[in-house]
């Protein structure tokens, strides 16, 4: 079927302001929105630019606004969006060009929560033991692919530049609830302030936006509780 793409274009070197450009592509119901973008770029207009890589929802490159919702273009099929698709870059970050946004701040916030296991005890000769139940406690947040769909869907993040945002909190959760980690106090100190979990207003946009179906709002609530109790 013919699918019409309305794509928000912007090249800060050439354009005074962003504008929408329309393209028509022949696609099947089970094609991905990314297939449509590729067709446009390969065969109609090579100046259109965006990020993409694995094309099946794991690398996290192609988060964008598709018909007003944050989604991965490679994980959204044409049958879900119909014959008219509106594509815009993620909100809240400066646009580099077209659908490519500058994610520097996103990754700075990610780095600020100590996103790594801290355990300086001498390691045992084999693995550290962890029960399946203890492992399950943080299973959900290990799925995060850092695509930024949650953080750029969050009204608190739109209105508050200093808020770390849901993705960084998800990353912190993954370590706070890992029995092998020893940096809970330091990590919670970074998350307990006004830039951390308390800036969250429980809008649930993050959970709705997550292409990995992580219960983001729940993870944030768990970190809030840990912040109050001083530990997991």
């Amino acid at each position, binding site marked *: 079927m013919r699918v019409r793409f309305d794509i928000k274009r912007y090249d800060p070197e050439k354009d005074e302001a962003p504008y929408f450009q329309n393209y028509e592509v022949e696609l099947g119901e089970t094609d991905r929105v990314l297939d449509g973008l590729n067709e446009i770029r390969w065969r109609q207009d090579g100046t259109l630019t965006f990020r993409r890589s694995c094309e099946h929802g794991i690398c996290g490159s192609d988060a964008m606004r598709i018909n007003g919702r944050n989604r991965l273009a490679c994980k959204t099929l044409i049958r879900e969006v119909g014959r008219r698709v509106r594509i815009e870059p993620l909100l809240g970050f400066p646009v*580099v060009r077209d659908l490519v946004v500058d994610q520097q701040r996103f990754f700075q916030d990610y780095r600020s929560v100590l*996103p790594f296991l801290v355990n300086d005890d001498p390691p045992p000769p084999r693995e550290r033991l962890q029960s399946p139940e203890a492992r399950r406690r943080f299973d959900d947040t*290990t799925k995060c692919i850092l695509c930024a769909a949650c953080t750029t869907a969050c009204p608190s993040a739109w209105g508050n530049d200093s808020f770390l945002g849901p993705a960084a909190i998800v990353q912190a959760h993954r370590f706070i609830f890992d029995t092998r980690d020893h940096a809970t106090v330091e990590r919670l100190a970074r998350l307990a302030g006004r830039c951390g979990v308390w800036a969250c207003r429980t809008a649930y946009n993050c959970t709705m936006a997550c292409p990995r179906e992580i219960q983001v709002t729940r993870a944030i609530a768990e970190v809030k509780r840990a912040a109050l109790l001083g530990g997991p």
Partner: protein
Amino acid sequence: MSTRVELHRLDAVVVGGGGAGLAAAVYLARQPGIRTGVISKLYPTRSHTGTAQGGVGAALGNCDPEGDSWEWHMFDTVKGSDYLADQDAVEILCREAIEVVYELEHMGLPFSRTVDGRIAQRRFGGHALNFGEKPSRRACYAADRTGHMILQTLYQQCIRQNVEFYDEYQVVDLLVEENCCKGVVAIEIATGVLHVFQAKAVLFATGGWGRMFEITSNAVTLTGDAPALVWRRGLPLEDMEFFQIHPTGIYKLGILITEGVRGEGGVLRNSEGERFMEVYAPTMKDLASRDVVSRAIYLEVKQGRGIGGKAYVNLDATHLGRELIEEKLPDVADFCRTYIGIDPAIDPMPVQPTAHYAMGGLPTDPDGRLLADADGSIVDGLYAAGECACVSVHGANRLGTNSLLDLLVFGRRAGLHMGVFAAGSDYAALPDDPTGPAIEALERIRNGKGDRAVVIRDEMQAAMTEHVSVFREEPGLAEAVAKIEELRQRFRGVKIDDTSEKFNLDLVEAFELGCLLDCAYATATAARNRTESRGAHYREDFQGRNDQEWLKHTFQKLREGDKVEFSYRQATITRFEPKERVY
């Protein structure tokens, strides 16, 4: 284009931010005084290691009452390789496997766990107990996102150790003179500015080149950049004829369905509902090695037993139960729901073989040092690890779980060696005009008046898929070589639309196509040259394995006028003499 060039000086430069590159960076960063930079064309967590699903192989023996041994793992790897792997390197791989997996756990990798809290392990193709007796549980896994967790864990450790990252930089040239590496040239994608990275040691870890085929599990960015750049500098590639076609990609899409599905008990069925692998591999059945299973699927389809007469078979996991699937294979279930609208707990999955992994690549010794020729001369300061390298531990066919293992073991070894090398060396003087050749190559693309890149790419993929895939023979291979030669000529005039400096994906993709064409050319010429069948390389006109003449690695160099020059290096045999391969 921008005439600005920025110069960097680093002790060690790692090109590629996937598993191999980050493993090397972690161990480089642990060595005091070694300034390390990672150059990656993607943000590192977007790398393709993240899509590996099933597990990483190590003989921990956590899940089989018989225990496990690295020697059994070594035997399986050598047998899987169809005896072409270098056994000294395989021994290192399987011995060090145990240590690197424990180290990853200590770094924080969230492995799935056994009831007693140990790292959980599952069955995988070609891995057996006691020298091939029965399937073993050797694949250490984190649900079906083992690669994702490895990539995340290594990246996290790099952050902790303050590794410098140059994200979204496309490498465009290698600076090497008289077997001495001097650095690399890269384009900063966001700005279009060229950067020269002068370095004492450079590691290439750019992954595979599955995009030379139509149906592939590989990301669109897997274009063989490092092998192409090195080959253009007159250095050799090794064993390029061996390309793994994985048995189970989602029909038409090629998205990988992990072998772990069969490891957990899933079976392949043809249109008659028969479990056909019982015929082709009586002992290992669905867990035979990948080359064997992919050929079996092709033969079933060829004999009219594809599902509904089409070119696919079913992977049946319906008897495993929803609980097991949701717990151990959640991403596979998600792919099935998202892309084909089925529930693997209820419906079988439609699968077809999909181009997956390059066994060949840049020849290295077990410390990752690049070989300059088949005699084993070393290129000073140049290293490779991971899929783009050929140590060779996979020989003619790689076992599942050994790619993650390869990138960990040899990424680590390369990182450690580079640190010592860099500490004891000075910077070599850069060539007079370090960016000259890169600028010329990029300008040619910017000014091209010929075909669009997509036209050339489509023709290349069609030729490779038709003639250089699971079954090969002389007339087809000759046709493929001629076609790729023609496409390489046409590529010299490739045309792009985009003239911008900023985030010019059109330019980057055209450059990548040039790299793919080099890899396709090397693959097709090497496949035509090897007149025997071994592992993933199956010649219908030379059906048997011929150890007398071909128990050796192919080395090929690119000479003037697109001529390919072959030489050979004997496979290293230490413990296991070649014998017939039966699963």
